[in-house]
C-alpha cells in the first residue's frame, strides 16, 4: 500500500487537467450557471455533456472502475480518486461521481451488461439514493416500495438523476433499473451538482441483482474525500495567487503575517487531507473512509471559506468563481454522512465508546 501517486495516476491526472483547463475553466462553469434574471431558473442544464463525452470516451474515465472483461479499464479506486481530485479542482459539471463511481459501484456485483454501456460513456446512470444518505443511514430521504415489479414512492435530494439515462433504485436489498420516472430538479445549494426529487408511481422496473447500499455509499464516501481535496487545493492555490498580487498599504497583502499564518495553517490542513484521501482510496476500510470524510469535508469547506474571506469583496460577488467552490464544499460536507456522522461511527470502529 502506498500513499503516493503512481506514474500512471500522474499521467491520467495531467490529461484530465489539460482537458479541463481548455474546456472547463471557471469562467465557462460560471456561464453554465447563469439564470434567467426574472424567473431565477437556470437557462440551461448545468451539465457539460460535450465535455463529458470527451472525458468518458477519449480519456476513458467512465470505465475506470469496470473490469476489462465487462468493457471497462479495470483500474483501481486510486485512479478514480485522481480523476475526482481534478474534477473537484474544476467543479466540473459532469456526472463522473454519480454515474461512474456511485451507480457503477452499485452495479458491479451484478455484472449487468449495462456496465459496458456506462463504461464507454454511451449512457449514464444515477443511483437513486438521497445525497444526504450515508453508510450509517442508507435509506435517509427514500420511501420506495416494490410491488409486482413496479416501484412506487419518492426519493429526495438525488444527485445526477437529471442527467441520467438509467436510474438504479435500491429497494430492500435489491437493485432495480428504471427508465422514465419523474425527475424534478429543485433549486440546489450546489449549482454544479444539482439535486432532484425522483418520484415513482407504479413505474415499471427491471430487477438487476442484489445491492448492499451501505457498502456502495461507504465506497463513494471514501472517494468523495478526493474530490474534497481537489476543491480545497483550488481554493488554496487561487487564494495564494491572489494575495501575492493584491496590494494594499503599498505591499502585497500576502506579506502580512495575519494572512500568511492563516494560509500556512490551511496548507497544513490540505497536506493532511491529501494523506487521508490517498489512504481511503487505497484502503477503503470503514475506518479509513470515516477518517477521510470527517477530516476532508471540513478542510474543503474551511478552504472555501478562507478563499472567500481573503479575496475580500470580490469573493462575495457572483462573477468570481469562489462561490461555486463554497457551495460544492458545503454540499459535500453534508453528502454521504456529515463529519459528525463519520466521527460517531469511529467511536465503535476504534473502540472509543460514548458515555454509558
Amino acid at each position: 500500500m502506498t500513499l503516493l501517486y503512481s506514474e500512471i495516476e500522474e499521467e491520467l491526472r495531467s490529461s484530465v487537467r489539460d482537458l479541463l483547463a481548455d474546456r472547463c475553466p471557471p469562467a465557462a462553469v460560471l456561464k453554465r450557471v447563469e439564470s434567467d434574471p426574472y424567473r431565477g431558473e437556470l437557462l440551461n442544464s448545468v451539465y457539460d455533456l460535450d465535455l463529458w463525452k470527451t472525458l468518458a470516451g477519449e480519456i476513458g474515465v467512465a470505465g475506470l472502475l469496470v473490469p476489462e472483461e465487462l468493457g471497462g479499464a479495470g483500474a483501481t479506486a486510486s485512479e478514480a480518486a485522481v480523476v475526482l481530485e481534478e474534477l473537484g479542482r474544476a467543479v466540473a459539471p459532469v456526472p463522473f461521481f454519480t454515474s461512474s463511481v456511485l451507480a457503477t459501484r452499485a452495479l458491479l456485483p451484478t455484472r449487468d451488461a449495462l456496465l459496458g454501456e456506462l463504461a464507454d460513456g454511451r449512457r449514464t446512470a444515477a443511483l437513486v439514493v438521497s445525497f444526504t444518505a450515508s453508510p450509517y443511514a442508507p435509506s435517509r430521504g427514500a420511501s420506495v416500495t416494490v410491488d409486482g415489479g413496479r416501484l412506487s414512492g419518492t426519493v429526495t435530494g438525488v444527485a445526477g438523476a437529471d442527467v441520467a439515462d438509467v436510474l438504479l433504485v435500491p429497494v430492500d436489498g435489491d437493485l432495480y433499473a428504471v427508465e422514465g420516472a419523474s425527475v424534478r430538479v429543485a433549486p440546489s445549494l450546489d449549482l454544479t451538482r444539482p439535486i432532484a426529487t425522483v418520484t415513482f408511481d407504479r413505474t415499471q422496473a427491471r430487477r438487476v441483482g442484489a445491492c448492499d447500499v451501505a457498502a456502495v455509499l461507504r465506497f463513494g464516501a471514501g472517494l468523495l474525500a478526493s474530490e474534497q481535496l481537489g476543491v480545497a487545493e483550488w481554493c488554496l492555490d487561487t487564494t495564494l495567487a491572489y494575495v501575492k498580487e493584491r496590494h494594499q498599504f503599498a505591499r502585497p497583502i500576502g506579506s502580512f503575517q495575519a494572512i500568511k499564518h492563516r494560509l500556512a495553517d490551511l496548507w497544513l490542513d490540505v497536506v493532511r487531507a491529501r494523506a487521508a484521501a490517498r489512504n481511503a482510496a487505497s484502503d477503503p476500510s470503514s475506518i479509513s473512509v470515516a477518517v477521510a470524510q470527517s477530516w476532508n469535508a471540513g478542510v474543503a469547506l474551511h478552504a472555501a471559506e478562507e478563499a472567500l474571506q481573503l479575496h475580500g469583496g470580490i469573493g462575495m460577488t457572483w462573477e468570481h468563481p469562489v462561490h461555486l467552490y463554497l457551495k460544492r464544499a458545503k454540499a459535500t460536507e453534508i453528502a454521504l454522512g456529515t463529519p459528525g456522522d463519520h466521527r460517531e461511527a469511529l467511536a465503535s470502529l476504534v473502540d472509543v465508546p460514548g458515555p454509558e
Partner: protein
Amino acid sequence: MNEAEIKERVAAFLAEQDPAGDRLEFLRARFDAGLAWVWFPEGYGGLGAPRELQQVVERELADTPRQLHAGMLAIGLGMAAPTILTFGTEEQKRRFLRPLWTGEEVWCQLFSEPGAGSDLATLATRAVRDGDEWVVDGQKVWTSGAHHSRWAILVARTDPDVPKHRGLTYFICDMQAPGVEVRPLRQITGEAEFNEVFLTGVRLPDDLRLGAVGDGWRVAQTTLMNERVAIGGGPARRGGGMVAPVVEAWREHPELRTHDLHQRLLELWVETEVTRLSGARLREQLSAGQPGPEGSGMKLSFARLNQAVTGFELEFRRDLGYDDWAFRRSESVDFYGRGPGYRYLRAKGNSIEGGTSEILRNIVAERVLGLPSEPRVDKDVPWKDLPR
C-alpha cells in the same frame, strides 16, 4: 544496497560480535561495521544505504545492547551529527561521530540567548580570534541537558561589523573547558530540564570550528532543519503517540465520560490519525527520493495536537492534583513524563522549542507557499548598529 544485503551485513557482524559481551565494545563495533546509521557514508558509522533500511537493522539487532540513557542523546544524534557530517573536516568526523553515537559523549546545543530567540541571527555571544584559538564570551539559554554534556554545538558572533547573518561562526564547544558555567533553569513542570550556560573567556582551539569563519548561519540551518524533523517525527502506529494514554484512560473510566468530551476526543483522534498518515506519506516521499515540503509542517501539527490532547486529558480526568513539584534535574527530554499534569505543562513548550509555531508558519508561508516576506529593517545594517 537493499534489504537482503543489509541483513547479510548484520548477520556477518553478529557472527563476529558477541551481544552478551561488553556493551560499549559491542556498540563501537556496530558503528565500525556501518550499522549505526546506515544512511551515513561508509567509515562514519554507515553504509551509504537508503535511510529506510535503518528499520531493518533495528529489527535485526532488537535484542542487542543499546546506548545507555538514550533520551540524552537526541541532540547529538539528531542535530550535531548531521551537521558534523555535512560541514566537519575529516578529522572532526573521525573524532566526534563514534563516541556521539555510542553515547560515550553527550551533546547539547548553545544557540538561543536571552536577547536572541526567534531572531537567532541577532545573537551576541562573541568569539574573538587569538592566534590558533578563539576566546568566547556570552550567555546561552534553554540548553537542554547541558549538565550531562561533554560537547556542545555553538554559534557565536565573530564579526559585529557586517549584517547579522554574515558575522556568525559555528563551533564545537568543550563543555569541560574553564569558563563554562552551567546553571539549572527551572521549568513550569517543576523540573530543570534545561539550563543557562555562561561562557566567560572560554578558549576553543580553531580546530573546533565547524565550517568557514562567517558561515555559521548556513551551518546552523542544517542543524535546525534536522531538529524540526526530529521533533515532528510523529507516531508510526494508528492510535499511537500522545493520544494513546488518553484513549486508554477513556476506556478504563466510563464513569468520567460525557457527550461533550466524547465529541472532542473523537475530533482529536481523527486529527491525530490524519497527522500520522501525513507523516507516513512524508517518509514514503523521502525514501522514494522526492523530498516534499510537508516536513516543515509536521512540527506545527505535532505541537498543536500535543497541547490539545494533554489539556483534554486533564479535563477528562477531573484531576486537580499534581504528582510532585520537587525541584529536580531531568535525566532527559521527556514529553510523556510522569503523569497527565506533567504532560499538559510540558506540551506548552512544544510550540516554542525548536522554532516557535509563529516562526514555523512564516517558514511555511515563505519557503513552501512562496509568499513575500515582511519588509525588513535589519537586513543590510551592520549587527553592531542594530537597536536592541
